[in-house]
């Protein structure tokens, strides 16, 4: 019974906000606690037993992440968050950008994978193209040859694998093939924040150049993210942050930077959090991804079917494949904040607002929305509790 792995899941608590953050299994909490209570030392430099243990556990966590993504540990950088990874990458890739480069993203991106790249385009005065999505929530990739992107220059492409609003999983191999056929110098970055807990994410299968995700959205702790970079990029990146840990030495006041991945990890890293994340991925690897997908798809179908019958509620992209279980709705005569707060008062956790994806809301010409995002620990009872409470909230607040 997987619910018993999650100490926060007391009876009567219906957590349906996993797209914001997943709950943490006890093994993850224990791994962090064990670091703090048994070997709480800094990594890489200490010559005493608990410091060596901390270094082994931290680098061991890197190995676990690498195994999980099907890559080598040298390509795995621990960051503070996915947003930190995205911003770091936007700085690190600057040397590859020319006046004729372009940045291309999609309207369904989270602010963390939209704003750092828009900022970079403004800073370097290069075009920033925002691709639309289809009624099925898929990136419209067919007209990219009409955007005026120079195939002889580097172009940066930034897409999510699963949207935190639509819940739709992109056909990335198809998207990547289309891009690479026209733009051989394309650098493609994938935001795997939502996908990494829902489907097996193998960087070689996607054929991307960089990928990032946050620890807390994959059953791990807050305060840690992962940035994966393909090896060809390792020596071509600018250093985004300077400080301790990222240098081998400082000679004549000049830093001699470390090799990857340490050159991108300035300062004391999130040690406990990385160890917790390694444990989370180990735990997740023991689960059956095909069962997770079937489970979430089933819950999503239940949700879409029932939500469609509630007056005032409109499911976004109702005909899309909501394999991830993430369902977002807009409302006609009830405010999403009232719905989310009313459900909250009944111990049912859902989210209201712009879901950190305001470009998509503008594109769809809608205001705030509310989102229900179940995951592997949810049951049909959670869904029924939410639907009953939703009907009550709509009746109470409809104007």
């Amino acid at each position, binding site marked *: 019974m997987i619910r018993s792995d999650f100490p926060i899941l007391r009876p009567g608590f219906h957590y349906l906000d996993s797209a914001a953050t997943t709950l943490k299994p006890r093994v993850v909490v224990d791994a962090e606690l064990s670091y703090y209570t048994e070997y709480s030392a800094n990594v890489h430099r200490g010559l005493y037993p608990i410091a060596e243990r901390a270094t082994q556990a931290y680098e061991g966590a890197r190995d676990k992440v690498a195994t999980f993504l099907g890559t080598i540990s040298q390509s795995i950088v621990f960051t503070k968050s996915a947003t930190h990874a995205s911003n770091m990458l936007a700085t690190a890739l600057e040397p590859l950008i020319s006046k004729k480069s372009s940045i291309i993203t999609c309207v369904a991106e989270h602010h963390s994978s939209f704003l750092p790249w828009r900022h970079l385009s403004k800073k370097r005065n290069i075009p920033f193209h925002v691709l639309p999505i289809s009624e099925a929530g898929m990136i419209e990739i067919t007209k990219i040859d009409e955007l005026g992107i120079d195939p002889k220059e580097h172009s940066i492409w930034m897409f999510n694998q699963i949207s935190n609003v639509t819940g739709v999983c992109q056909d990335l191999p198809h998207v990547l093939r289309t891009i690479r056929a026209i733009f051989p110098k394309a650098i493609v970055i994938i935001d795997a924040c939502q996908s990494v807990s829902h489907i097996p994410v193998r960087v070689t299968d996607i054929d991307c150049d960089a990928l990032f995700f946050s620890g807390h959205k994959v059953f791990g702790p807050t305060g840690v993210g992962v940035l994966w970079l393909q090896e060809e990029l390792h020596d071509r990146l600018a250093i985004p942050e300077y400080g301790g840990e990222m240098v081998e030495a400082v000679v004549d006041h000049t830093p001699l930077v470390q090799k990857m991945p340490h050159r991108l990890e300035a300062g004391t890293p999130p040690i406990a959090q990385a160890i917790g994340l390694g444990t989370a991925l180990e735990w997740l690897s023991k689960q059956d991804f095909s069962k997770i997908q079937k489970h979430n798809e089933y819950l999503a179908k239940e949700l879409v079917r029932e939500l469609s019958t509630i007056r005032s509620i409109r499911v976004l992209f109702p005909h899309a494949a909501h394999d991830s279980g993430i369902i977002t709705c807009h409302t006609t005569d009830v405010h999403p*904040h009232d719905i989310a707060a009313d459900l909250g008062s009944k111990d049912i956790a859902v989210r209201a607002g712009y879901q950190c994806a305001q470009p998509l809301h503008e594109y769809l010409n809608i205001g705030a929305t509310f989102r229900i995002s179940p995951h592997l620990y949810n049951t049909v009872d959670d869904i029924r509790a939410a639907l009953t409470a939703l009907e009550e909230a709509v009746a109470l*607040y409809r104007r």
Partner: protein
Amino acid sequence: MDPKERLLDHYHHPQFCRAIKDPTARGTTQNRSCGDQITWYVNVDKDYVITEATYEASGCSFAIAGASMVASAIQGKKAQEVLSMTDEELFQLVGIHPGPVRANCLLIGLQGVHAVLKKVIST
């Protein structure tokens, strides 16, 4: 009537919720993070006494009921007196101490009328 019932009553039947033609001052305040918006219309006399304060609002129950309760409380009051009204005093008036997110919703009415009254006093 308990605070929640009173809040719902103000939400479903907001008081002073209308526009005024040619007011002494008007101003719109938005909560960009959730899309709530309120436009205040305020008339004051030569002594800065509020002779009429109305609003048009779109938002959640807390935003609309908060504006309605502020409007009900400030008719006939001096602008300076309303400007000295604190967030805590509004929470006491409503009878609800919301969490940090919903506090923004509840406070948009008070913040909006403060912005308009500052404009009145400074001109």
